[in-house]
């Protein structure tokens, strides 16, 4: 790991403000992501993963309130960015892929126009320049570039999710935040997409914050993993540690809570009693 991490989340605490009481969704969470690293956040639904992802992108809105903490990106606090700096930050530095991102493409725009939107706004590209960049990005995610003339509905869910990932990588961000990017997809499609991202992060050197509830998948893909439980980061370690030597009871419990393809299938019946 390098001296300055790409991203350093420090003592992050986020509440959802309510009429009667506030709900602490993220409680004093700290972790670093190094340049080129894939860091995973695992935990059950409601434990605060998406709340953290939104905050890193400065996409959190009321009733979410950051009570405490810092989100340092290349040493600068994201929470201090003014509007202009924020525009520079999003897409250029950090891009985000949501679980339902495949449904977030504009249905009435051809794929090439969705690339052009971004490239014109941020880089002042002409249509021809955007088309060239779009072709390059689509090839990276195994989509034939000639299909950029098609509309989103002409693609399968897996292909749409790949297009979103290609758009996210268009401005060469240093960090891609992926919040359950493949949960809605089939395992073969999921594997193809994540395997591609793994190759790309090695060749292009970006970091990934990868969020899922599938611990097995997480170990396959991530360098390091943090385990969340009700807003708290209860354990973090290398994938190898989390898999072979989990320390926290909750991590052990998560491992025991789903069947695997190998080993004694009846182990779990006992474990879940």
């Amino acid at each position, binding site marked *: 790991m390098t001296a300055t991490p790409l991203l350093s989340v420090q003592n992050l605490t986020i509440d959802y403000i309510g009429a009667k009481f506030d709900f602490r969704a993220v409680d004093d969470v700290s972790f670093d992501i190094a340049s080129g690293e894939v860091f995973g956040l695992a935990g*059950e*639904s409601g434990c605060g993963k998406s709340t953290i992802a939104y905050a890193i992108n400065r996409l959190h809105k009321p009733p979410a309130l950051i009570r405490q903490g810092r989100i340092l990106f290349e040493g600068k606090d994201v929470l201090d960015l003014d509007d202009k700096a924020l525009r520079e930050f999003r897409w250029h530095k950090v891009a985000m892929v949501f679980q339902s991102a495949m449904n977030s493409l504009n249905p009435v725009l051809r794929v090439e126009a969705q690339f052009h939107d971004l490239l014109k706004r941020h880089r002042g590209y002409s249509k021809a320049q955007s088309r060239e960049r779009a072709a390059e990005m689509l090839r990276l995610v*195994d989509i034939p570039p000639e299909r950029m003339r098609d509309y989103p509905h002409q693609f399968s869910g897996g292909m749409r999710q790949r297009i979103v990932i290609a758009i996210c990588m268009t401005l060469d961000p240093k960090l891609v935040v992926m919040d359950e990017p493949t949960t809605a997809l*089939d*395992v*073969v*499609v*999921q*594997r*193809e997409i*994540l*395997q*591609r991202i*793994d190759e790309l992060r*090695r060749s292009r050197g970006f970091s990934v914050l990868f969020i899922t*509830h*599938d*611990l*097995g*998948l997480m*170990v*396959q*893909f991530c360098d390091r993993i943090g385990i969340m439980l009700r807003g708290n980061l209860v354990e973090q370690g290398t*994938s190898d540690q989390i*898999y072979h030597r989990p320390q926290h009871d909750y991590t052990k*419990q*998560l491992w025991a*809570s*789903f*069947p*695997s*393809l*190998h080993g004694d*299938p009846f182990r*779990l*019946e006992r474990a*879940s009693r």
Partner: protein
Amino acid sequence: MMVQEPIIALDHVSKSFGRGDKVVRAAHDITFALHPSRTVALVGESGSGKTTCARLVMREHQPDSGRILFRGRDLSDTGAVGLKEYRRAVQMIFQDPFASLNPAHTVDFILRRPLTLGQPHLKGRAVDETIADLLRRVELDPGAVVHKHPHELSGGQRQRINIARTLAMGAQVIVADEPTSMLDVSVRLGVLNLLNEMKRDLGVALLYITHDLATARYIAEDILVMYAGQIVEWGDVHQVLTNPQHAYTRLLLSAVPDPGIRFDDPGARLDPRAVDVIRREARLLQDRVVEIGPNHFTRQAA
């Protein structure tokens, strides 16, 4: 192997939707049987035809061709099997535990109706007690949930109510269509174990539909691997998963998340072009059945 008569048997059943060049072969030449105290897992990716098979079993679709037998009687013979009798015996549990429970009704009401319809001899206190027994059976505390409405329960609790309701109806066959995919990981196993107990203790025949091979292995004796409307491989779950013969079964197995294999292991890489070839070939009609072992079969293009 199986000496006992099946409760339900599908015999070369096919079902298509649409017409002309828009026709979708949703289920083609489907043959399998459900036996008391046994679980068949039907696995495949979305769109492969799993729910179509479930709806055929539920008599919500009519087969275009082939027969469905209920205790040996052909469902298409008029009058052979009454719809009422069938609907009581064959029950479905859906993916979304909320959609199938009427939000206006309490748990008590949800269970009382099928009980009194199915077992009219039950009266008064006996009904209350049977409801409490059913709730305990699905590991819920009767006192805590009986007066609640569905929205006051968690997803896992709702799915347990759905299971209790199928039992209240007197189900002999349960068709569970991805029953845990919308539940939190920590409660999934509990629901699976419960279905397993229904099978073991009450002799229910279970058709468990999933896209997850690991849970199929956990809960089922037999497995059917479906792709593009065809069952490409089937038989004893351990045989099929340890000695897969069809290229699509192998592909599916290799893509299951496995913490023992890292994406950067050279041997782990799925070649996207090879995947496309497997998909394209598995979409072709495969009319030749090949026997691999006593309870293990696959299909090939003729």
